[in-house]
């Protein structure tokens, strides 16, 4: 399986490199309209054709990938950090504090994600710009996705609280923050890393679902959700199979993250 992992890393690096360098690689800006060429077929100038507004689809795929590949890990970082703070503290302190925190976590886990996201998204002011909407969408994902990870981290931290090395550290006079930072956090690292990797494909998929429902990143900024939304033009799909290219890239990217995940999970 090592070669598959290497292939997944290689593919992700290529996609990440191309999307980060979209300003140089893309033939046009994501919002630039070729008004005389709407719905154009793939050509040398437009590798994946143009959309109904005449925007170069290849450029939009690159910029959209950049949005998702930059912000999904950022959201994953936020949610994992929250999970580490909440779950780690609950597991470390224990007792009534742990019970209260875990009850709140259970409540959060019972709330159906997508319904909650729809609600919070609908609560936002009307006049949000595209950049703000993208930030808000991924920040919401980060803020709402900590509960599952917090439960796992709490269980691990609870187990460590009674571990021999912690008892030894306590016996040698290490307490409080020092014990937390020097003994517990380094040992929680593998599980924290695994939770981080688990969250990335989940957030990418959730953003895609939200975007396809018209509640994700707003136009003209592209994201995978808005790119996949093009599949809704049913009559066009049979005559324009290249509309499936963003979907294929999407599936391979999410699949690659899953491949990384399987090996990252092992130390946990």
């Amino acid at each position, binding site marked *: 399986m090592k070669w598959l992992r290497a292939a997944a890393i290689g593919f992700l690096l290529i996609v990440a490199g191309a999307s980060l360098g979209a300003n140089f690689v893309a033939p046009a800006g994501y919002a630039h309209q070729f008004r005389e060429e709407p719905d154009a077929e793939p050509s040398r100038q437009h590798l994946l054709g143009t959309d109904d507004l005449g925007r170069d689809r290849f450029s939009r795929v690159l910029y959209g990938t950049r949005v998702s590949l930059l912000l999904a890990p950022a959201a994953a970082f936020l949610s994992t950090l929250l999970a580490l703070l909440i779950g780690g503290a609950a597991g470390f302190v224990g007792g009534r504090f742990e019970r209260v925190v875990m*009850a709140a976590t*259970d*409540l959060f*886990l*019972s*709330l*159906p*994600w*997508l*319904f*909650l996201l*729809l*609600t*919070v*998204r*609908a*609560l*936002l*002011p*009307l*006049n949000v710009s595209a950049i703000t909407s993208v930030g808000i969408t991924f920040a919401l994902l980060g803020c709402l996705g900590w509960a599952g990870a917090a439960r796992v981290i709490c269980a691990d931290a609870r187990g460590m609280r009674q571990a021999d090395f912690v008892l030894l550290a306590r016996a040698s006079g290490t307490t409080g923050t020092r014990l937390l930072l020097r003994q517990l956090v380094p040992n929680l690292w593998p599980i924290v890393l695994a939770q981080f990797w688990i969250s990335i*494909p989940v957030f990418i*998929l959730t953003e*895609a*679902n939200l975007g*396809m*429902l*018209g*509640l994700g990143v707003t136009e003209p900024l592209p994201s995978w959700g808005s790119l*996949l939304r093009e*599949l*809704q033009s*049913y009559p066009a*799909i049979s005559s324009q199979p290249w509309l499936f290219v963003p*979907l294929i890239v*999407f*599936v391979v990217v*999410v*699949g690659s993250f*899953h491949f990384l995940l399987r090996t990252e999970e092992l130390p946990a």
Partner: protein
Amino acid sequence: MKRIGKHLLKLLLTLMVGGFLAATLVRLAPGFGTDEEQLDTRLNSTSLESLNKDLSPKENLATFYVHYAARLLRGDLGMSRTLDRPVRELIAERLPETMKSVVLGLALGWLMGLSLAVVTVMMRSVATDGLFTFLCGVLLCIPAAVWALLFVLARAPERFILALIVLPKIYSYSRNLLTRSAGLPHVLTAYAKGLSRGRIVAWHVFPTAAPQLLALFGVSVSIALATAVPVEALCDLPGIGQLAWKAALGRDLYLLTTLSVLVTAITLVANSGCELLGSMFRAREA
């Protein structure tokens, strides 16, 4: 009985806290008291002022919550602003449709996922395991909304999408649970004594993994309900998922929060039921 009572109390408390949080979220949201009409450039300043006055919150947070809770206790779920109909009526009309999809999706997803997991554990073949894991991995990478569109294109029965979304999760978790159970000393002893694989799985592997499988069932209810939103919205199925989507687009906050609390209640009941059954199972095993 004591255990059931404890679970019911926990459920009620969680719902009350959830309802309070939902009401607070609605009231404090930056978008509360705003409407798309306010962006209409054709409106003059007097019309805008009157619209703003109509939409502006008339109660403080405490009064708002007391009124909200009192209405809920009376069974009054309010009116949907966008659809201009009582929320209770809308839910009564659409909930059965969603529940039909969820039940069918869960039944199919569990049947297929668990069957694949059992086959993997029984065959103990790397190739079978690799093939099923790969197939489920591919299913896991496709968003529910894309499945919905593909099913509409292929004119396939949309209710099966939920099964496709639930299947890979059921497979991967139940495979791990069953594999772990199959490695326990008493199961290995059973293998050594020459018991048939089917008998070992049915009598030794399943009972050990049952409490965790029940917990997984609770989680799968939540996944299926969340998947109902894109599926119903894009396949035009008149369930509460489509209602939530319409409410989100129309910023119908009362309807949206009521739906969220309702779905939370269903998830909590499913989780509590599974937890209760799991603990009863564990007690019997002990």
